[in-house]
């Protein structure tokens, strides 16, 4: 049994011993990831509910944020494009791995990783601008350009939501990098592409969250 001892090419890989066959293993892993994503939805839903409640409590909070251009919608839009593109590259990576197109798999994984990096760079510029101006969450807020009482709470929602989303991006990058290393060892092919497939699911989820965050935070007034 060659489990875990260095590179195992997809042609000689065995499924874990408690599964009947590779297909059963694949199905189980995929179902596991879907269930995990359901927990993620509920995790984020807490924040979406907080967002909704605060909006109802303080209708002019959003108005102030919008009117004073606290958030730059162009940055958000740029990042939306970046992430959607990365979803596409990820999907291509999955299909390449299924077809055993080794070079394409690695290439598209790198492209996804790169786009995720771009997303974080944009986010970095947004964050550092806010930190510089003291447009910070709750009690930390000290922006002189706008001193209404409720904007600090909005900034809490903004930082918590985008921060946790950003954390998901970082974790995703780690996993994608790990996939690249395995792909380089030729571990994926038509018989075994489970990790690429389920990482793909995760990555699409991370994109999807952003697709909700962008309009709710940057656009809705």
């Amino acid at each position, binding site marked *: 049994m060659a489990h875990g001892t260095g590179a195992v090419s997809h042609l000689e890989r065995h499924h874990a011993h408690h599964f009947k066959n590779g297909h059963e293993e694949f199905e189980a892993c995929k*179902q596991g990831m879907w269930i995990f994503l359901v927990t*993620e939805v509920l995790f984020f*839903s807490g924040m979406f509910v907080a967002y909704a*409640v605060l909006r109802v409590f303080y209708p002019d909070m959003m108005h102030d944020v919008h009117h004073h251009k606290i958030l730059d919608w162009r940055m958000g839009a740029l990042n939306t494009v970046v992430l959607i593109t990365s979803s596409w590259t990820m999907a291509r990576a999955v299909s390449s791995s299924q077809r055993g197109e080794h070079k394409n798999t690695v290439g598209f994984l790198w492209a996804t990783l790169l786009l995720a990096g771009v997303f974080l760079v944009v986010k970095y510029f947004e964050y550092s601008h806010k930190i510089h101006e003291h447009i910070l969450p709750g*009690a930390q807020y000290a922006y002189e350009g706008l001193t209404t*009482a409720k904007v600090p709470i909005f900034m*809490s929602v903004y930082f*918590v939501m985008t921060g946790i989303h950003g954390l998901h991006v970082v974790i995703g990058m780690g996993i994608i990098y790990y996939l690249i290393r395995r792909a380089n060892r030729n571990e994926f092919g038509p018989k075994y592409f489970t990790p690429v497939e389920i990482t793909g699911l995760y990555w699409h989820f991370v994109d999807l969250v952003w697709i909700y965050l962008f309009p709710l935070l940057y656009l809705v007034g």
Partner: protein
Amino acid sequence: MANSSTAHGDNYLNHSHGLKSWLFTLDHKRIGLMYLFVILAMFLMGGVFALLVRWELFAPGMQFFSSPNTYNQAFTYHGAIMVFMVVIPLIPAAIGNFVLPMQIGAKDVAFPRWNLVSYYVYLFGLIVAASTLFINKVDTGWTFYAPYSIRTGTSATLVLLGAFIMGFSSILTGLNFIVSIHKLRAPGLTWDRLPLFLWALYATSIVQVLATPVLAITLLLLILERTIGIGIFDPKLGGDPVLFQHFFWFYSHPAVYIMVLPAMGVISDIIPTFSRKPIFGYKAIAAATFGIALVAFVVWGHHMFVSGQSEFANFVFSFLTMLVAVPTGVKVFSWLATMYKGSLRMDTPMLYAFGFLFVFTIGGLTGVFLAVVSVDVHLTATYFVVAHFHYVMVGGTLLAFLAGLHYWFPKFCGKMYNEGTSKVAAWLIMVGFNVTFFPQFILGVLGMPRRYADYLPQFEQLNRISTIGSWFLGVGFVIVAWNLAKALKYGEKSGPNPWGALTLEWQTPSPPPHENFLKEPVVTEGPYEYRGEKALMGSNA
């Protein structure tokens, strides 16, 4: 090699040796036992706090604690330890881990590695939370209500972080169980032949997977509230403390079903076995399990009748809460009907199952009292509520756990405990329990508030009785522990199937082989097809 476990005499306990073979094991049976060990250690710790709390309440004025604040700390640790570290993981993570893969006829859970990760995550969270005992003790109560939990100058952040971390463990276990039941069932084990314990674990897992993330975000927001002041729950910064209560109970009400559904599952397996009769209403019980799980998500507001939520919300939550009693009743009557005209065997597991039926029903019915808004306004935050949830959590979950522990103990280790001693302990626990908690119903109705170190003189008599009851309970648990520990060493060999049960885990040697079965089992009928006395002879063993 994969089939080395078929060698005769080889079992999961002697398959490999040394501490490391346990700490890094991927075997669900060993992981289950490691959970059991840690959870019982925490149960001891939570129990000591409980005895101290009761000691303090033996008489008005201060008895044991130096100040009311140390008393507050003691009940906080008692509650937080018992809820998050003991009762929630107790049946699924300990017994479920051991039994689930065997009942589906599999070699392991779907993701053995994640199973081990889940164990260490639990341990890590536990250490983080318990470390505060040595730093700066927390005094918020297990519910962490804002804004007090934001302001208290204790190391509450660490306890919150610990509970946050333990949540991941709960999610991973639930996820693992769901996938295992879907994908790893033995040939012939169709959904309508699934033992009811598995239906219960399945529903529990779904609740764990759906509710725990909400607790995670709630605790995280509270941690951020304490550390940087995000102002979402803090009224001083424009936040809403009632929002915290909604979030908290959106998890913590379903959590009470995370606690009690597996208990009901244990009972559903034990009663037909010891009545030698097929279960009455198999489908009804399975459906009721899901009914309860579903309704569990829409009743959280019954913890908030006096929080200022709207009258309409009170009405809706009150109505929905009472609905829970319907599927619960379906189960209780199905169990009773199963026993009707059966040939009952009163072994220890069955004795505890009887205790469960008696005590849990009181707990559930008093829950319905509390669901009536006009009654609850009087009873909320009194000892009536304390009695209610102890009747369901101790009388329900803990008694069912003890039933399950005594039921599966011979499977865990291949040995049998002393029946006489275990019955004495069972009686002590059940009588002690009622002596401890029944007076608390009366105290609550008389208006004694919960969570105070002191009380008015007129409550002394009943408090005394309650405290004395807690000693009986304590002694009962010590006897259980001693009896089982003794059996581990000196117990007689139990054989593979001492109860003549029909579910798959009994159709393999005790202790089971490393990979559970000598050859893959094939299922040909339902799990409770007992045919009078015949099955007692162990025709299937």
